[in-house]
Every structure is written in structure tokens, then in C-alpha cells.
């Protein structure tokens, strides 16, 4: 299948500290691609680099024919990349409706998109006028995903979407990611829970010390978890 997103040789810095060293990976059309690695390996930074929130000093990030590294950060989502940040980062003082509205404004989507997104997460409709900071953790995560899906993105970046949620909610989030795959959305998923990765991902890239070490099909990991042990230290 065709690559929707191709990352090659990306260097990123926080101040003078280099956190990504020539990182590269490709995202295929309609796949769920997992980033696995220890804390501080550079998974979140990779997502932020794609969004332009941490500037790439070298390398290229191409979405179809568009080079994202030269765009200002606020143009990246308009090109079709949606981001669900770690810790959800909702606009907590705003209502559910306003958070959705900000998502819709990004790529000028309208009523039809909103209806589609709310069908995925019906509970948000009941909470529509509520302040988003008062939602439960799971509802907040749904809202964060809904807000991102309002872009009707080609590429979805999910940073630990199941962190701190109860099991039933984790299952809901997983189902959603799987059903998005069936609609053709390509997803990069940062996830710590190995069981979630094994059940959900198509391919896995291991990240260590800011470098992408290996990309493997998930079947290989199901049969042979030694790689997980080596790069993540569990399993």
C-alpha cells in the first residue's frame, strides 16, 4: 500500500539537547502504526515534530506531496494531520461544543462532520453544553479524539490515548481506533500497553534514544516477544 506519511532523517532539539537523531519511519495508507520505546525515548517528540510543534532542524516529513517541516505549526493540521496529545489537553474551561467547534474550524468542516463525529461518541452529545474540564477521564479522551476527528484527517496521531482510563473505556477507545482504520484513516499510536499494541497495531516501530531502531509487522511480535523485551524491557 502507498505511504501517506514518510519521515526521514529528522533531528530535533530541546534547546541544545538533541532528542531525535535522524529518526525515520513510514506510515502506510490505512494502517495503525505503533511507536514503542521506553520513557524519554522520543515517541512524543516524534509526534510533536510531525505537528511542527518541535521544529525539525534536519530531515524531512512528507504528507503525500507536502513537505511539513517547512510549514508553520498552525498549517500542519490544515494539511490533514490531527493530533490527540498526551494528557488530552482539552480546552478545559470551554464547553464540549466549543472544543468540537475548534476542531471543525481547523479545516472549515461543518454540520455533517460534527454529526458523524458525535455518532462515534454519542455520550458527548448528552454533555454538549457542559464544561469539558468536568467530564470523566474517559469522556475527556473521547472528546479529545472527537475534536481531532473533526478535521477529517488523513493521518491521526494518538499519544497514549488509554493512559489512566478504566478497562471498559480502554476497550471503547481501542474499538474506535480499529473502526477508524476501516474508514481509511492512517494512525500513529504511541502506547505503553503491550497487549493493546499487539491487538491493535499493524506494524510497530521501536524507538530508542531518539532513533528508530526497527520496524516490524505485528505478527512477528506475537510469535516472538524478544524484541519487546529488548526495547521496552517488559513482556
Amino acid at each position, binding site marked *: 500500500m502507498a505511504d501517506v506519511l514518510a519521515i526521514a532523517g529528522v533531528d530535533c532539539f530541546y534547546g541544545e539537547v538533541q532528542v531525535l537523531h535522524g529518526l525515520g519511519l513510514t506510515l502506510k495508507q490505512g494502517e495503525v502504526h505503533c511507536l514503542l520505546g521506553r520513557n524519554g525515548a522520543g515517541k512524543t517528540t516524534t509526534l510533536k515534530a510531525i*505537528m511542527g*510543534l518541535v521544529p525539525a532542524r534536519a530531515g524531512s516529513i512528507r504528507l503525500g506531496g507536502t513537505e511539513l517541516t517547512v510549514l508553520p505549526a498552525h498549517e500542519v*493540521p490544515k494539511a490533514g494531520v490531527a493530533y490527540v496529545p498526551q494528557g488530552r*489537553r482539552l480546552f478545559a*474551561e*470551554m464547553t464540549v461544543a466549543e472544543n468540537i467547534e*475548534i476542531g471543525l*474550524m481547523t479545516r472549515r468542516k461543518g454540520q455533517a462532520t460534527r454529526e458523524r463525529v458525535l455518532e462515534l461518541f454519542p455520550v458527548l452529545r448528552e454533555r454538549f453544553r457542559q464544561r469539558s474540564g468536568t467530564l470523566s477521564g474517559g469522556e475527556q479522551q473521547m472528546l479529545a479524539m472527537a475534536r481531532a476527528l473533526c478535521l477529517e484527517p488523513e493521518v491521526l496521531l494518538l499519544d497514549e490515548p488509554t493512559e489512566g482510563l478504566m478497562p471498559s473505556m480502554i476497550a471503547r477507545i481501542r474499538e474506535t481506533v480499529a473502526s477508524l482504520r476501516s474508514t481509511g484513516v492512517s494512525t500513529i499510536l504511541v502506547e505503553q500497553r503491550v497487549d493493546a499494541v499487539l491487538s491493535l497495531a499493524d506494524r510497530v516501530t521501536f524507538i530508542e534514544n531518539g532513533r528508530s531502531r526497527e520496524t516490524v509487522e505485528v505478527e512477528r511480535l506475537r510469535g516472538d516477544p524478544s524484541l519487546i523485551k529488548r526495547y521496552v524491557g517488559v513482556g
Partner: protein
Amino acid sequence: MAFGPHLLLATLEGLVTSAVLALMALGLSLVFGVMRVVNVAHGEFFMLGAVLAWWIASLVSGHPAIGFLAALAISPLIVGAVAFAADRLVLRRLNYEPEATIVATIGLLYIIQQLALTFYGPQARPVDAPFTYRILFPWFGYSGYKLSIIATSALLLIFTWFVLTRTRIGLVMRATQYDRETAQAFGIPVGRVYAGVFALGAMLAAIAAVLIVPITQAHYLMGLNPLLLSFIVVIIGGLGSLRGTVVAALLIGVSDGVISAFFSPTLAKIIATLAVAMVLVFRPQGLFGSAAK
């Protein structure tokens, strides 16, 4: 004059102060709320608004109302453009770092002030009020223009509230205020929002100045006192809270009017400053501000 009418007069004077103060403090509060910039030059935008109002009104002949309305329309636009340029040329290059922007806006304060002294001079000059109608109470007559300041300010505050809470521009401003990085991830051009908010804050100060200049005259040092009062209002009301700003402006303005009339202006300032100290000790987020998350 008997106590009752005297109190009414003092309250009216206080309300006029409140009206102007609320507009100006709102500008300061917006800039701090959205950009986290403590704009020490805010008082100079106020002064610049007044000086420009005099200049524009002096260019226009005919009925005073024409000159005044021209000033009310044009002066805030020029001040907004100056603030926009200051944001692009100075604040953005400092990456909006809190300490650096304080020093930079102090510099801006002196630049604007000295430019005003150079080109406008040390005189205090009035702008004619657009109308001179006096409302006659049984005990005293009162300037209709002063009452119109209160009404205009109230309208502008309602308008600002409407823009902030009911329009997409307001939504974008609030999103930038709450989480700059996430706002960018949703296509919000944070840099442009900052420049716009800085200009808007300065324009609110300039409008306040144009409204007050028929009463107080334009002078190149007139910015200091309103700046201090604005800080007092913003601290008491709570940063970023429009309601808090209005309530605190009413509190400070009216108490200033009443205490100045019955005791002394100095006592009014002492009490206002004491109120700031008490608020900072017992409720640092301000009366209506929300606590830091």
C-alpha cells in the same frame, strides 16, 4: 450641599472613573490573559490615544462633535497599529518571555512618552466635548457628556463580552489563552492572535482616553495614574476575568470618587492599595479569577 446630593455627585464622579477604568483594565487583562505579557506601556497607549485625539480634533473644523467623533474613530486605530507594530518588532522577537517583555514594555513606555513630549509638548490641552447638555438635578446640574461616557463604556464592555464568548474570534482567543501549543495543533495562528490581542488591548486604552479627554485634557504624563489603577483593578478582579474586571473597576472607581469627595484623594489611593495587598494575601487569584491549575 446636603449629604444625600453630595453622595450622589461623588458616586456619579466615581462611576465616570469606573467606566474609563474598566475599559482600560480590560485591555490590560486581555493582554496578560492571552499573551502572559505584563504590559507596562499600557498607560502610554492611553496617553497616546488622548494626544492623538487632541491632534485629530484640532485638524477638524466645524462643530466639536465632528472633531470628537473623528478622534474616537481614528485615534484608537492608530494606537492599535502602533501596538501591532510593537508586538511584531519587539515582543515576538523576545519569544514573549515574561521577564524580557516587562523590560521591553518599560522601554516602550519611555519611547512613547518622550516622543509625545517632543512632538506634542509639555502642555495640557483639552478636546471639546461633543455636546454640552447639562442634566439638571434638583440640587445640582451634571454634565450629560459624563453620563454618556458611562453608557458608552457599558456598551463597549457588553460588546467585548459578546465577542469573547459568542464569536469565533473570541473562541480562538480563548483557545490561545488556555493552551497555546494545542491551539496551534488545531490550526490557530497563535502569532497573529497575539498581535491582534495586543492591538485590541491598546485600542481599548485609547478609546478610554478619547472618552475622558474632554474632561481631563491630554498631557504626556497622563498615563501613569490610570496604569496603576488598572493594575489594581486587574489584580483585585482576577486576571482574565471580564466580570471581575468590571466589578473591581466599579469598586475602585466609586470608592475613589466617594472617598476623594468626603475625605481626601490620598486616602482613596491608600485604601485601594491596601485592598490589593489584602487580595494578594487572602485570594491571590483575585475575586473572580480561577486558581491556577
